[in-house]
């Protein structure tokens, strides 16, 4: 019964899909194509991310993470988080479990917010596409402004969430 409850929303979505197929076959066709291509992407990248998380947990000791990304890592921690985020990787939802495992190992909230923000908005391959379609000036100004906003966000969220850290 609990399994059924867990899958309540997926079942509801399945019903919506069926309704679409009957009344809006065009939309349903596009929807199913998109769903399948994202499903493929997830199936390909998810295992790699979980292996990476496993490797971090086994190979990199907590005190190293604490030293590089912890509360006293300062500018160096900000820089490392930013660099890790800009590496060519997958969509943002893949970074959540990774961020959670780094937090558990002693990374500071400021650095995790900067890591997630850079992963989302400042990834290098994404910037190249942006330059091509929106121009260099647009890309550079957005990059700088976003970086500033992400760092400020990290500092504010650290203040607001410090007490809750144990519950994450």
């Amino acid at each position, binding site marked *: 019964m609990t399994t059924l409850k867990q899958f309540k929303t997926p079942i509801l979505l399945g019903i919506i899909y069926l309704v*679409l197929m009957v009344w809006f076959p065009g939309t349903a066709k596009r929807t*199913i194509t998109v769903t399948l291509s994202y499903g493929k992407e997830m199936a390909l990248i998810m295992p790699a991310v979980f292996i990476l998380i496993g490797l971090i947990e086994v190979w990199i000791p907590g005190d190293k993470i604490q030293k590089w990304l912890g509360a006293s890592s300062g500018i160096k921690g900000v820089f490392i988080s930013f660099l890790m985020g800009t590496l060519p990787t997958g969509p943002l939802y893949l970074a959540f479990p990774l961020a959670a495992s780094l937090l558990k190992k002693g990374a500071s909230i400021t650095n995790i917010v900067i890591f*997630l923000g850079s992963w989302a908005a400042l990834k290098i391959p994404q910037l190249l596409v942006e330059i091509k379609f929106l121009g260099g000036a*647009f890309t550079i100004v*957005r990059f700088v402004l*976003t970086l500033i906003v992400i760092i400020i*966000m990290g500092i504010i969220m650290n203040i607001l969430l410090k007490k809750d850290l144990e519950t994450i």
Partner: protein
Amino acid sequence: MKTAPSLLIILGIVGLILGTLTPETISKLIGAEAGYWATLLAAFIGAITFIPSLVAFPLAGSLLRSGATIMTISAFITTLVMVGLVTVPMEIKSLGKKFTFLRNSFSLIGALIIAVLMGVILK
């Protein structure tokens, strides 16, 4: 096994949103109109959609050429990459409710600030 339902939910919702909110529909919604409403609408659409950058940036580029303002396009791009309503269930599972709520709210506010500044700087 615990993540299976939330993965299915994301897949299902992404499919539904992208299937209905096609690039043409987005152009119609934020391309024609100017002003602050268009910017807010663009920020909202960016927050609820989940489009790969290879599709989003060409779309943003063509919207810009067809008359959308820098402010509107910046709002769309920034919320698109930073705010993810669709992936909220996954984010909560990994990082907790409070973190997820704060990160997405601040990203939305930050995106609007970035958009206004972009509009001023790149006039």
